[in-house]
């Protein structure tokens, strides 16, 4: 099935008007020796019915257990039905970037509303229309800080998601920046002495995450002065966006940039993507931030309307002097996030409370088991680190019972041997958790 509507007669008439005999003649600019003689070595074409059956078969090779204790940067949340219905409207999903504002008011207004809601929940003054994901948003914030301040050192806390640290490392390497990692302390929050020691007048940015990879809420307010005293910029990240429903946002505590993963806002886990990178900043950086920005304006009759604005920051105007190279972003995921936030409204706080309650229950009950100990005393949102006698065996038992277990921390944190990172969202019932307890207690 090739979705080409041309009949042989159409093709005949068209070639005649062009003045050629065969379509092959249109490829005359390609040197003959480089033209393929036969067909590509690919599986043969399929009808819609066949391809539907094929994909159903492949998808059934995946197994989606009804209970998951895995978070670690991606979270299993309930997605209200309205989200899927809105993003399934093909006026949205089959459109390109809104370059022609007059026929793109739908997405431009929706993105303007998204930016507004993101600024509100992060406590910042401005937000862009999205980045690729939380990790690349953090990396771009670091690069932007370094370029803005003409400094080459980036300080990152070890409790930032391991994959985010790797992405920051890649972007920093490509730009010739130095990355210095500072440890977390015994509480699970960042080590403040190490921070004071690491931040100097060469430091462009300090990258921290709250809740951090261990689920622990960082005390952003207490580190802000250390960072700014040396003229560096504070980049505060997150991977669990629903925490913004209840926790004091970093924007209210002196962060210059708030970046994070927006997947929790109405986007399915999708085996890793697509998600959306949230990028918010203080007003000071409005003309420097990467990515698209929808802005309000008026039409020539004075009616309110929306356009892509401040485009002189962007690559298609400024080329090698652009703030970033980003072009496509994750607009449809941002639309899903916007619909999710409107759908929950003030209930985002209730949802966050429910997550705290569920995780607290699981944490308390697991810690009552023989040989199981909570590793860090600092408060957590919906994830926690727990030490147990044999994490691999625990996960195997859970897997065998159709449960996705916790994240084995040893591979990224050798010092946290025998520790698992568990997550409990509103999707786990008490019954689910009690079942988990009985499985691991066996």
């Amino acid at each position, binding site marked *: 099935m090739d*979705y*080409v509507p041309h009949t042989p007669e159409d093709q005949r008439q*068209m070639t005649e008007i*062009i003045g050629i005999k065969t379509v092959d003649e249109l*490829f005359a*600019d390609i040197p003959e020796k480089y033209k*393929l003689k036969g067909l590509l*070595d*690919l*599986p043969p074409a399929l009808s819609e019915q066949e391809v539907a059956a094929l994909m159903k078969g492949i*998808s059934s090779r*995946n197994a989606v257990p009804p209970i998951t204790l895995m978070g*670690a940067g*991606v979270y299993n949340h309930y997605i209200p039905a*309205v989200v899927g219905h809105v993003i399934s409207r*093909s*006026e*949205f*999903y*089959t459109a390109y970037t809104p*370059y022609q*504002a*007059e*026929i793109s008011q739908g997405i431009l*207004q929706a993105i*303007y*509303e998204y930016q507004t809601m993101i600024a509100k*929940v992060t406590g910042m003054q401005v937000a862009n229309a999205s980045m690729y994901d*939380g990790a*690349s948003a953090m990396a771009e914030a670091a690069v932007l800080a370094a370029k803005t301040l003409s400094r080459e050192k980036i300080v990152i806390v070890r409790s930032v998601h391991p994959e985010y640290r790797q992405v920051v490392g*890649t972007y920093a390497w490509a730009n010739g920046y130095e990355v210095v990692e500072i440890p977390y302390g015994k509480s699970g929050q960042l080590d403040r002495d190490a921070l004071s020691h690491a931040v100097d007048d060469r430091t462009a940015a300090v990258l921290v995450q709250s809740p951090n990879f261990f689920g622990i809420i960082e005390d952003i307010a207490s580190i802000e002065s250390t960072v700014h005293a040396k003229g560096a910029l504070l980049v505060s990240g997150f991977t669990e966006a629903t925490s913004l429903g*209840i*926790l004091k946002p970093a924007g209210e505590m002196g962060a210059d940039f708030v970046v994070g993963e927006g997947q929790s806002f109405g986007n399915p*886990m*999708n*085996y*890793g*993507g697509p998600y959306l990178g949230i990028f918010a900043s203080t007003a000071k950086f409005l003309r420097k931030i990467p990515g*698209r920005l*929808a802005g*309000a*304006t008026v*039409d020539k009759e004075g009616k309110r309307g929306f*356009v892509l604005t*401040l485009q002189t920051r962007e690559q*298609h105007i*400024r080329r090698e002097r*652009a703030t970033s*190279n*980003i072009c496509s972003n994750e*607009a449809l995921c941002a639309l899903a996030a916007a619909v999710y936030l409107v*759908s*929950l*409204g003030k*209930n985002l706080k*209730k949802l966050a409370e429910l997550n*705290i*309650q569920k995780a*607290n229950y699981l944490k308390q009950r697991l810690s009552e088991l023989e040989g199981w100990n909570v590793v860090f005393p600092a408060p957590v949102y919906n994830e926690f680190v727990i030490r147990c006698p044999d994490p691999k065996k625990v996960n195997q038992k859970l*897997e065998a019972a159709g449960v996705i277990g916790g994240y084995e921390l040893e591979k990224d944190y050798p010092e946290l041997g025998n520790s698992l990172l568990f997550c409990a969202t509103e999707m786990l019932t008490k019954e689910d958790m009690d079942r988990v307890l009985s499985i691991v207690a066996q």
Partner: protein
Amino acid sequence: MELIFEKSRPGRIATGIPKSDVPEVAVTSIISKSLFRDDVDLPEVAEVDLIRHYTQLSKRNFGVDVGFYPLGSCTMKYNPKINEDVSRLPGLTSLHPYSPVKFSQGSLQIMYELRQHLSEIFGMADFSLQPAAGAHGELTGVMVIKKYFEKKGQKRSKILIPDTAHGTNPASGALCGYHVVTVRSNAEGGVDIGHLLELMTKDVAGLMITNPNTLGLFERNIEQVSEIVHRRGGILYCDGANANAFMGVTKPGDLGIDVIQLNLHKTFSTPHGCGGPGSGPVGVRKDLVRYLPVPRVIKKGRRYDWKYDFPDSIGRVRAFYGNFNVMVKAYTYIRSLGPDGLKRASEIAVLNANYVKERLRAYYDLPYDRICMHECVFSGKRQVKESGVHTSDIAKRLLDYGYHPPTIYFPLIVPEAIMIEPNETESKETLDAFCDTMIAIAGEAKENPDLVKSAPLTTAVKRLDDVKAAREPDVCWRKA
């Protein structure tokens, strides 16, 4: 139209939250009150308000399903519905990326086979599917080049980019710390060989070309370009944004391309979603595979697994594995079309572009009068001279006739550029109707230029004040 915030009424909700079924503990006994926020200021609306709001917004938006969308270089072909349906199979959408591999065999199979198919179509040794979009793929490709020279112990500080390139190319080069040097185009729209020879020195990492280029023209001198770049130890990079022109006809790998990035959301029919999600796989020649991002899917017997241990890799460019759900749609598309379908798609894309070029050539200036590939580039210079009507006016007038306009003012080397990419999924009748409209607008420009300059007349809003938007930026709503 009112903003969602203006529709908000205190006390309304659209989604309820379940009651807690665990023994209730005061949250302030779990987390200190000082860490909590006061309020979360989000709109309060009923579900029906939400749905009507977004339905109204959708009616103010133009997609491929609404009408013809010949936006040059963006490949706005029809997005088959079966691809959407299969991508929403719960087995694919509900899987956590850290699920054990034995639970993820289906997803891993899709990624593994998609990489194989892309490698075959483009003649590359292997692909990475991690980059989230075309520009992200470019960045990844340039990082691969940087790592290659780093491992060879060579310091090369410059990268060459033709003046016809997409803006993302120089921006990607710069984001990798390269000094970007522009190569001129020659009179027939290709790379100026003399200029390339002059610039391609030992401190140049490589050349980033787009082939077919943004004029819609195939680089006739590709052999010579490849030879010049390689003779001086450089890497030949190809921006694959225009790959819809040659699937099954030729392979970039055979043409001497060392690194290529694709846009699955263009060539492989995954919908653009108002600007994303995309997916920007990067393909490389054999000796560069070891520099690709980690992790990579491997196959052992019939089982798929993740492998992280590639010591020469550039590392990661994003978390997890890429925009998996987009890959599902591209994979489905390749399986639907098969080898003959992909070839036919490219052939008809090129046929359609040449047909439009032929039908409009008497009415608009054609700066490079050659056979084109999947898109053709006109200039509105004649209209400016005759009646002061600019390309932007012509584009806005097209809105009144129910079309999405072509890409305009790009490539930069064509004044008043009108870049038309019709795509293979559009019928002769659609093209004829569009061409008739373009011809009618050329007539209007002559006879009634003020009408064209005042377009659009039929849209939800009239021409918008971009200058005001930039001078008094308002990117987040605040209560008056």
